[in-house]
């Protein structure tokens, strides 16, 4: 087996088959295992910030309190959640070897992610300048900006990965059979979305009672 073979998206388990007999010794894909580990470790990180947020609910000694200043981020959430659907469609296009369709849906995903960042930016502007809530105002401010900001930083990273894939595809640098690399980026993006579900529930549904 030549080196080019290995680079052309040969399944990981074939590396363990130097004789090339193709016997049924199958091992999990390295990329998938690696991405699952990354998601597990990131989940542990988010868990601590979510626990901190829940622990500090109602413990602020001075306002503004969540119930006074937070408005449900409808548009941002809709944008982010629907980006999970568009990236799913992009993957279908990829499997059908429809390059234009892939670029379209993938590009739409990027646009929705970018809109989410814009939306959060305006929300924070409003909170900071309109409601005088900063990270040092009270424990609500500290935990709010830390948790939402941690998620936002992940959206940034996801957006960077998405844009890289989009640009490289546009330039034709990604061969059509590199499915798994691109699938991993979409796993990460789905993960970022799933985290937003948790964050939005904790921050905008539960904590606005305080």
């Amino acid at each position, binding site marked *: 087996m030549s080196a080019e073979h290995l680079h052309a998206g040969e399944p990981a388990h074939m590396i363990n088959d130097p004789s090339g007999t193709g016997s049924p010794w199958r*091992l999990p894909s390295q990329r998938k295992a690696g991405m699952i*580990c990354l998601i597990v470790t990131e989940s542990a990180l988010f868990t601590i910030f979510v626990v901190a947020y829940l622990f500090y609910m109602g413990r602020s000694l001075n306002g503004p309190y969540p119930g006074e200043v937070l408005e449900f981020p409808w548009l941002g959430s809709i944008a982010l959640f629907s980006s999970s659907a568009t990236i799913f469609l992009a993957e279908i296009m990829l499997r059908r070897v429809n390059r234009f369709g892939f670029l379209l849906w993938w590009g739409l995903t990027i646009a929705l992610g970018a809109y989410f960042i814009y939306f959060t930016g305006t929300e924070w502007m409003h909170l900071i300048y309109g409601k005088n809530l900063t990270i040092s105002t009270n424990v609500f*401010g500290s935990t709010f900006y830390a948790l939402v900001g941690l998620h936002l930083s992940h959206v940034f990273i996801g957006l960077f990965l998405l844009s890289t894939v989009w640009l490289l595809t546009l330039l034709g640098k990604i061969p059509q059979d590199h499915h798994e690399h691109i699938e991993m980026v979409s796993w990460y993006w789905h993960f970022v979305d799933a985290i937003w579900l948790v964050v939005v529930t904790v921050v905008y549904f539960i904590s606005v009672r305080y």
Partner: protein
Amino acid sequence: MSDTIVDENFKAPEPERVGEERGSFTRIAQELVFTVDHKKLGLMYIGSGLLFFVVAGLMATMMRMQLAFPNGKLLEPDVFNRLFTMHGTAMVFLVGMPIIFGFANYLIPLMIGTRDMAFPRLNAFGFWVFFFSGLLLYFSYLAGPGLYAAGSAPDVGWFAYSPLTAKAFSRGHSTDYWTLSLLMGGIGSIATAINIIVTTLCLRCKGMTLGRLPLFVWMFLVVAFLVIIAMPPLSACQIMLILDRYLDAKFFDTQAGGSAVLWQHFFWIFGHPEVYILMLPGFAVASEVIPVFSRKPIFGYPIMVAATLMIAFISLSVWAHHMFTVGMTSLGNTFFAISTMIIAIPTGIKIFNWLGTMYGGKIRFDLPMIFCIGFLFQFLIAGLTGVMLSVAPFDWQLSDSYFVVAHFHYVLIGGLLYTIFAGIYYWYPKAFGRMPSKKLGHWHFWLFTIGFHLTFGPQHIAGILGMPRRIFTYEEGRGWEVWNLLSSIGVLIQIPGILCFVINLIYSYFKGKKSGDDPWDAWTLEWSTTSPPPEYNFANLPEVKSRRPLWDLKHPEDPDWKFE
């Protein structure tokens, strides 16, 4: 010995280096910086870990000299605070972690029959991040004062309880260096742990099912899982602390509704699994060394794996036993006391399995084995004092006393360090092709063992007599004098022991007896390669049929796989 029996197919020819000036400084430096080879990185991990070990050990020596007599005048109190903080932090993050990762890096690909880790560049990244995080921590001695001319190295203790770390109480940059160093080191550890998991799951050679993995690899797989779950809480702590110190956030600011106890919870959610992250690799080495030197397969392989998984699982729910004196509810105290006691069960199972392996075996008292036997005795003592401390009322009396110091030094030195020594002596011939000197090794063992018990045995008694930890001196007439003096004398016996060890490593590299490929007549795949192994490990990837592939090769008339 019997290395001629090893199948030639497993071996690879020695790589020939033509036209290279070997040994020149730039050549070596270039190789170290650019390498992504798991064996080189593994040795670099262990080497830099040992370097930090010597530094942090000298810090401990200074503290012991200060405490040898009452009213010691050697060190100022603030210097003493910095010493115990740096000693603890360095020993956990810059000695324990890199050395275990070094073992994992060097051995896992060889043991599972593959050519490198799954992500070699990530591997190099993990090493360099760790290495620079270590330098960053020590750089605080120079740069800690910052513009405020206050503080120097961190002096907040290795678990840095809030509010000591708040801007008001920890001026200057010392705590910032501590925080950033741990945050960086955590990233490196997670990267390496992910690499270990993926390598183990996805790169096993043909026939190496999970049921045939060497126990060493199994335990490191579990350790890596613990790292990716337990390290992020530490990183989260550090992020919150940085936000508190730089952006005036209120996480740990009790005057603004923040909670100092939350830091303790978050820190120990990391901190207790960390104890097992450090201890399980010790178990891993013992599980390889004891069978080989008892000439018997490991007793109760599936139970060993199950016990490892149990330890990992339970270790995630015992953290608050570090906090009995904080004033939790009775329910909380009871839960954490019971879960701590329960974790002694799988640990006990392991000790019985090692004893079961030795029972009836033809034991060879070579260097690795005597260190493992020392480990068994000392770790038993550590476990017993651990169960004592898990009883909350007992802990109320002895928490933060020298009894606790003695307990965890029996765990980390008597348990972990002894198995690290055993592992280094065991795999030294594999890595360098030379046998470590037996005579120096025996001197090392006896000096260090006598010194170790003399240092930490009396600390149990000093603790029961009420001596708190982290005091820089004490007055006469409390009954602590003799125990402290004995303890300090013990250090002076340990030092020549460590010196023998270091000299042995260097001396044997140049002058040691040639070892051959399989000097211990062992059974796992790493011994089927040349010593040192070629860069690609195996010319043809092996195929295994049992848990002891080399036994099968050496004894074709009586292979293991017939009985599995």
